[in-house]
């Protein structure tokens, strides 16, 4: 962690939250304090916790995946959030959840842009159905044109998965498609 991040966490009064968490004490009541903290400092704290507890990998689920007590899905069903609220929810879930909590962002409810940004605020999983530009599910045999030195058709799912991988890599993280958890 840089001194800049360290100082931001201090200024926001979040040092105690970080130290308590490192000592294995998680205070769910801290969530109230986190909801009033400076957003970028909270994001820095959440990202630090994420790196220490679950590492750099981002699990990507493109089909319905199991949700258990270790998983927090943001945004939760039926809740409208602004982009900034979503980032705060993600960070709060990371910092006040159980150690190693899997914070999953559903890109079908918030868009891939916000989902990508959320990776810098504590998220470590992305989930959503691969869809076309109209938001409709891709047919299994659907193909997409790929332009390059040689234009060609490729299965739509392959193209979309490559895009998802790119989104994750460009946020500085390592993508991993998680097929085992598919139910």
């Amino acid at each position, binding site marked *: 962690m840089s001194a800049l991040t360290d100082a931001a966490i201090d200024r926001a009064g979040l040092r105690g939250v970080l130290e308590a968490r490192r000592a294995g004490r998680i205070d769910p009541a801290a969530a109230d304090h986190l909801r009033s903290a400076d957003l*970028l400092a909270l994001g820095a704290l959440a990202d630090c916790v994420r790196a220490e507890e679950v590492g750099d990998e981002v699990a990507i689920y493109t089909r319905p995946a199991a949700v258990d007590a270790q998983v927090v899905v943001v945004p939760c069903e039926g809740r409208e959030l602004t982009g900034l609220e979503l980032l705060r929810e993600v960070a709060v879930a990371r910092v006040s959840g159980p150690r190693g909590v899997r914070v999953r962002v559903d890109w079908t409810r918030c868009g891939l*842009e916000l989902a*990508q940004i959320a990776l810098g605020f504590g998220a470590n999983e992305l989930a959503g159905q691969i869809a076309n530009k109209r938001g409709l599910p891709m047919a299994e045999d659907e193909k997409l044109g790929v332009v390059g030195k040689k234009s060609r058709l490729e299965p739509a799912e392959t193209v979309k998965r490559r895009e998802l991988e790119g989104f994750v890599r460009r946020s500085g993280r390592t993508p991993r498609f998680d097929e085992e958890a598919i139910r």
Partner: protein
Amino acid sequence: MIDAIRRRLEAGDRLSGEDGLALLRHPDVVAVGQLANEVRERLHGDRTYFNRNMRLEVTNVCVASCLFCSFAKLEEGAPGAHTMPLEKAWHELEIRMDDPPSEIHVVNGLHPGLPFSYYEDLLSGFKRIKPDIHLKCFTAVEIHFFAQHYKMTHREVLERLRLAGLDSLPGGGAEIFHPEVRSRISHDKATGDEWLEVHRVAHALGMRTNATILYGHIETFEHRVDHMLRLRALQDETGGLQAFIPLAFHPDGNGMKNLPAPTAIDALRMVAVSRLLLDNVPHVKAYWVSMTPEVAQIALRFGADDVDGTIVHETIYRAAGSRSPGALTTEQLVRLIQEAGRVPVERDTLYNVVREHPRAVLPEAAFKVRDRKAARHLEVVS
């Protein structure tokens, strides 16, 4: 590294090109955003600007063949080519006179077949309809084209257009100044030096202008930094730039459609780094058409202090696959800014305050621990 940059910023030192590169490469974009946010709040507090403007592209016929462009058509009569009769362009303002914009922003293709009087009449017609409308029209690329095509100097072009009603220049056409990139993506229009010279002349005539960068295609981080440093040097010389607007490349339907579009993280990073590097340009815009309103809202925490305006009519980004809406209402812009915990300030083109809106009683605003200036701003709400 980022700590050393912060110390330099605190000491009031200017960042170097190497600093800019380090910030563009830094893995923690939130940390870069924190630095930029500190500068933004030092300059503007929570004030976040927008205006009521209307975009108009009166012709998309263009002799230039820029690889990134999905808007231009090479000749009149080609499928999709259009050139508005003047009456139709004026009509776009007339039909909005019950709730008129304060600014018309015109950007066009480089049409080889129109007389110069077309552009003069376009401007004077708008002023006839609404004498106090601010006309922010024609990129430096267009001004340079007019100079070549109608055999005038840049100064003569600008003086004639000013007589017809031109008030300021938009920042488009800058793309990437460095010839290594510019010669590949837009070889047949104004060079980077020519773009800068048009703005230099405009500033000498007392006009204000904006500047852009088109990022996320074939350029390197070095090219982006070079671009911003050239603008910073111009601003040191003239002081005429008002705002810097990072524009994300969109690949649909153009000559670089094999490239991936820059992502939201890239957009936030560009906003943040430009806020830090362009220490002499007052405003950095999160242009919602380019980055979507949702990401623009977040960019207000990464260094941006302006979201542009209501737009109404944008077609250039839509042609390139932008998923942003075509227009936002004043109410939507106010809410977007309020939800970010900022104070919306409606401005005119020259950043004179038209109306300061209250800070909202919304969750994100209520969450804020900080703030002292905001209360004072609220007192002046009409």
